[in-house]
């Protein structure tokens, strides 16, 4: 009973969301989507003819690549053109908590649906297309010297 003789109101007050606020630095749900560059359609790849397609023809079909590297496959000098695209749709639930004065723990549950895919064209010294490969750029360029340092670090999601 208050001073006015009324019964205090019961029921859900604003306090129910207080723990949520207090924990806002420790728990979180992130939904992040990330789109980088344009996917090369498969039908454009079908217009590439290893053994006959020349560099100018490939550039006219596909546009400018993201990267160009020098190669020396089997001792023969050549060049590699790489096109890439990235799509991510990540949902991340994070809980972090202090362990000691100088350390903190994290528990992440992450559903990653994205990685850097691409198309890689291999040319000989006369700029004739030798072959092309499509798939995860990390796999395709694993054997190419110099590709590692140019691979975009910002695709590494933490």
């Amino acid at each position: 009973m208050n001073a006015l003789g009324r019964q205090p109101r019961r029921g859900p007050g604003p306090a129910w969301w207080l723990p949520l606020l207090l924990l806002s630095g420790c728990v979180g749900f992130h939904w992040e989507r990330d789109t980088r560059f344009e996917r090369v359609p498969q039908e454009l790849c079908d217009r590439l003819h290893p053994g006959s397609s020349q560099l100018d023809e490939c550039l006219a079909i596909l546009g400018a690549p993201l990267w160009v590297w020098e190669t020396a496959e089997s001792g023969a000098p050549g060049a590699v053109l790489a096109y890439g695209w990235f799509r991510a749709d990540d949902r991340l639930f994070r809980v972090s908590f202090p362990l000691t004065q100088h350390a903190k723990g994290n528990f992440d549950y992450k559903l990653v649906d994205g990685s850097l895919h691409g198309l890689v064209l291999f040319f000989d010294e006369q700029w004739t297309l030798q072959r092309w490969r499509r798939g995860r750029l990390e796999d395709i360029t694993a054997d190419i010297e110099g590709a590692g340092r140019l691979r975009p670090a910002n695709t590494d999601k933490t």
Partner: protein
Amino acid sequence: MRRPSRFRAAAWLLPLLLAGCLVSRDTKNAPLDQQLVGRLEPGTTTARDVVEMLGAPTEVVQLGHRSAYRYDYTTTKEMGMLAVVVIFTNKDTRSDRLWVFFDENEVMTHFGKTFAAGDTRYAMPWEDIPGAEETE
């Protein structure tokens, strides 16, 4: 007449939940001039001409005795919403790119161009960005 406390709580809660909205735009390098790119002529344009027209390249790649110059202009647009424990963001990155290939005499032999920076879009995570097909 007093409003129910539930409504008062909601009035508190709403601004807290919608405390953060994010709209950002980021660019890298200078825009490429399509008219200048249209003046490139394989067999005639030299590396010096290209640099005089477009400035210093972003990257120079040595290809044996030949070389290639890269010019690019990248834009990123990001939109999001930051609630108390929830963060939603959607980011779109596209670029204008130009690769110019030179022979051993620094005469341009080929060039490839892509102009896509203008297609960069703002969107929330539940919105699909046009042209951003799913990866395979």
